């Protein structure tokens, strides 16, 4: 077994060169290069985490804006609806007013016409009475030779007309 047979002559060389080369590996690679490799990994992890956080923040902001937009939109819709209702009410009130005015005009015209009609009828009635009274005087004069006064003739006519 050379490990034991050569121990006395080789141990110092083995230990010396192992310390030299393992020392180089430790200080150059372990202390010098490995931390930089790990830093690269750390930087990458950090960048990924940052990007994810930024994306999350952007999404949150978008959600917020959407909510705000929704609220604004609802307000606008409500306002529009109120405007429509208001306009409807206005229009209804106006048309009612117009209809009322027209009705009033018609009513006055009707009333005037009725008054005129009534007046015409009254005047016609008076004329008829007068004519009837004259006719009655005439008839009684001619048939019975009785002279009837105008007032009694017209009184009789009135009575007779009242019975009609």
């Amino acid at each position: 077994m050379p490990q034991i047979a050569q121990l006395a002559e080789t141990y110092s060389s083995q230990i010396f060169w192992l310390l030299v080369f393992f020392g180089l590996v430790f200080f150059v690679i372990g202390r010098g290069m490995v931390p930089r490799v790990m830093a690269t990994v750390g930087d990458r992890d950090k960048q990924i985490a940052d990007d994810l956080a930024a994306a999350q923040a952007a999404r949150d902001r978008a959600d917020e804006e959407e909510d705000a937009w929704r609220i604004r939109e609802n307000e606008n819709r409500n306002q529009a609806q109120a405007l429509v209702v208001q306009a409807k009410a206005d229009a209804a009130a106006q048309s009612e007013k117009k209809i009322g005015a027209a009705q009033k005009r018609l009513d006055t015209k009707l009333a005037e016409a009725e008054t005129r009609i009534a007046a015409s009828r009254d005047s016609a009635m008076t004329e008829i009475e007068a004519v009837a009274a004259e006719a009655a005087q005439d008839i009684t004069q001619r048939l019975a030779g009785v002279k009837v006064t105008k007032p009694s003739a017209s009184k009789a006519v009135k009575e007779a007309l009242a019975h009609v």
Partner: protein
Amino acid sequence: MAAEEGKVDPMHQFHIEPILGSQNWEIAGFNIAFTNSSMWMMITAIVLFLFVWGGMKRDLVPGRWQVMVESSTGFIEDMLDANIGKEGKKYVPYVFSLFMFILFANLLGLLPLGIIGVHPFTFTSHFTVTGVLAVISFAIVLLVGFWKHGFHFFSLFVPHGTPLPMIPIIFPIELISFLVRPFSLALRLFVAMMAGHVLLKVLSSFVIDGTNAGIGFGLLVGLPSFALMIGISALEILVAGIQAYVFALLTSLYINDAENLH
């Protein structure tokens, strides 16, 4: 070494030879010959450097190579996070170096480079190497433990709810199990790597000797051994990963003891 011509010595692959005429290099009287073992440590370090360097483009959207490197650091980071918690992050450089160095050493040692005449050397099959790594891990545990908790660190050896009269018995048991840790850590990796490589070499000697002994032996012994070698090679790739993982996992568990006591 003592192998005859045509024979396979399963132990020869662990033989350490100085190369580049460096067998007399010394520091303070200690021999520091640049051996085949040292060369494969260097190759492992270079390959590992190229692997990590290829993943350092720092792209926001990583390519395949960058994903491999980032998942290997992420794997160690997750393991330390799961075993130690938030405090574990500062041990990522050490545990990553440990895990990847052992993993690459194990895998490079399995490369079938023998067919082009280069013999890979698995330095993790030497307990001088695994022992040093285990001692480094154990030293970190001791330093962190005493640095953070002072003498309170000894309460690690008295589990919660131990009845008072049991403490004098429990304490030495826990202490010994704690002190055995570096040895178990080192021996586990060394034995696993050595056993696998020896097994592959023994089987390959069956294939060679069996085939040389004639067509009958070749079919009877050589062919099944060869099929077994293919399966065991796949298993060895798995073992290479598992042993590196176990070494790193146990290191992180021991560091957890030092960081958080119980």
